[in-house]
């Protein structure tokens, strides 16, 4: 098996500045993520958490005014979202999109085929794929019938989020970005989602989990916690930082207004 270099980061964010329209959301963000690591990015609403995950995944609508996103040693700024996905980046969306008329099974099969082709792997026979998907769906507590339904159409909030984690588990990326996957989940759904993430976790995977609340970190223990406020990481630490935030909120980490430089 190939040796994994844990010292070289899989994702390296350098002085990233991102705007939406005239609004600067990220204002010099730095972050380095290596394989085998789970990073949690926490922060209040509007701090730029979702912008960060979307920009790494290549979502249109954001302007990168400065800085770099280095993935596996190369800049991915000019790449389309599908190219990034084929290189192993996965984003679990905060608001998964409904796709009328596209069945879950068809969606996942098309995506998996695209990724397998990019990885130089052979096509899965339909029967193999169905068996594979069935096992994965079972692990996420999905009724087999749900795979025949249109993607996210008529799904509950919890089902949509579980579906994101199912996609992650089927598509098997190297870097998973989870954008507030915990929001809107009841405790049972949260446990299922966390179980999925923990099963995915491993020495050749990197996870960046973006959340507003500490709650999910009781189930997915991060190696690093970062606090994002006003588009910058203002504090990094171990998993105990999350507890501290839970107890004290974010206010104490805000920069005091214009103190003497």
């Amino acid at each position, binding site marked *: 098996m190939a040796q994994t270099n844990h010292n070289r980061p899989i994702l390296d964010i350098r002085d990233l500045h991102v705007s939406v329209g005239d609004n600067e959301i990220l204002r010099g963000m730095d972050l380095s993520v290596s394989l085998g690591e789970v990073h949690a990015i926490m922060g209040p609403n509007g701090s730029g958490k979702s912008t960060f995950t979307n920009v790494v*995944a*290549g*979502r*249109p609508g954001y302007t990168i005014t400065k800085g770099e996103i280095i993935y596996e040693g190369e800049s991915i700024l000019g790449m*389309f*979202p*599908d190219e*990034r*996905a*084929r290189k192993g980046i*996965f*984003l679990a*969306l905060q608001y*998964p*999109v*409904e*796709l*009328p*008329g*596209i069945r879950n099974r*068809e*969606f996942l099969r*098309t*995506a998996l085929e*695209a*990724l397998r082709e*990019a990885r130089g792997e052979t096509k899965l026979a339909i029967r193999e794929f169905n068996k594979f998907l069935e096992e994965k769906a079972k692990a996420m507590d999905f009724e087999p019938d749900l795979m025949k339904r*249109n993607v996210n159409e008529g799904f509950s909030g919890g089902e949509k989020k579980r579906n994101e984690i199912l*996609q992650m588990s089927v*598509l098997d990326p190297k870097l998973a970005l989870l954008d507030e996957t915990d929001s809107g989940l009841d405790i049972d759904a949260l446990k299922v989602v966390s179980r999925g993430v923990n099963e995915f976790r491993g020495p050749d995977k990197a996870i960046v989990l973006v959340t507003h609340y500490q709650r999910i970190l009781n189930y997915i223990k991060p190696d690093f916690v970062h606090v994002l406020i006003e588009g910058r990481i203002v504090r990094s630490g171990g998993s105990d930082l999350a507890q501290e935030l839970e107890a004290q909120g974010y206010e104490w980490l805000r920069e005091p207004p214009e103190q003497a430089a």
Partner: protein
Amino acid sequence: MTQTPTAAATDRYVDQFNALREEREKEPLWLRDLRREAFDYFQRMGWPIDEKRDEAWKYTDVKPIARASFRLPDAPGAALTDEDIVRLLPFDEGMSRVVFIDGHYAPEVSRIRQPDHASVRRLKEAIQQDESFVHGHLARYSAPHHDASVALNTTFFRDGVFIYTDRPLSAPVHVVYVTSEHADPVVTYPRTLVVAGTNAEVTLIESYVSLGTRNHFTDPVTEIALGEGSHVTHYRLLLENTDSYSIGHVRPCLGPDSTYKSVVYEAGSGLMRLDLEVLIEGPGAFADLRGLYLTRGKQHLDNLVSIDHAKPHGKSRLYYKGILDDESRAVFGGTVYVQPGADKTDAYQEDKNLLLSDRAEADSKPSLEIYADDVKCGHGATAGAVADEAIFYLRSRGIDEQTASRLLIKGFASEILDEVGIEALRVFLEERTTQSLPRFQAGLAA
């Protein structure tokens, strides 16, 4: 004397009407009276423009039609071969086919499978041979004073198709109304009359196509009478060029326990209005109406659908979907009327649109007017789910843009096209759907 352009255009109709006097004199008296009545109505009312433009025409301006002069072609402007038809419309193997080119019957490409107990023929022939029967039905459902386009069709129609049966008709009937390329704009007035007797079954496909790219006007009327317990499946394909105009009326009248299923597919025309006016005339009747419209460029397609529940225990379902690109516009006006006494009516209508461009516009106005008790009615509309979100979602999973777009459009359309029971037709429409949105041939990124 100065004349407004509109008055001049109306004079053109008078000239055309007078020019056809000789032809009319060969027709039965009742038909001559009908045409006279229709033309009087048109002269009195004209097109619904300017101050005559009421609520029903709020979103669609027919001035380009009202102000233009269209010539009635004396003879077909082109000849077609069987291969031409198969190339244009590759789905009618084994069906009866009746073709009209520029309003004139084209026997060389028509083939009518004449079954027993049924009559499938040209309307002109039926008027001569089955005069009293046709007299009992023609213009009975689509009255000449319905509006300007029906009045003009009634005044000027030359021919069309007549179907009568009181048994299940084994083969579908494919009616093709072709307009060929002319140097000046021409008009055709296709007329289709279907009378399904008690327990009869009929499948009708109407295809409207242009051979050229120049402007022309089509003003079709289709009347369908459904006897007790009969089933009519009606596909209507609008594939005319995007510089053409089409203002049509489809009028199914449903007898007791009859079933009318329609799928309208609209990918052509520059300015279109289709007025589908369903009458639930007998108790227990069922209307299932589906529509898929695809617009791009500057196309303007307007679907006005009304379902009139006049009798109890009726059921209607309406699902229309639109995919809009560029600066195109789609209008959907759907009304369910439940008349006093039409108790136990069960009606639902829904119109959904997918916008591929932020300059495209969908106006969707479903409404209910209920005057009966104990009814179950509902409606829904989505004016514009923008495709970008869905495209990003698919691409973020590794699916390239072209595949993502195809999946999305095919998926969105499938809820309508899956209802097409004739496989060759369904395959044709699926292919046509992805081809109709050329930007997805090349991909958005290009």
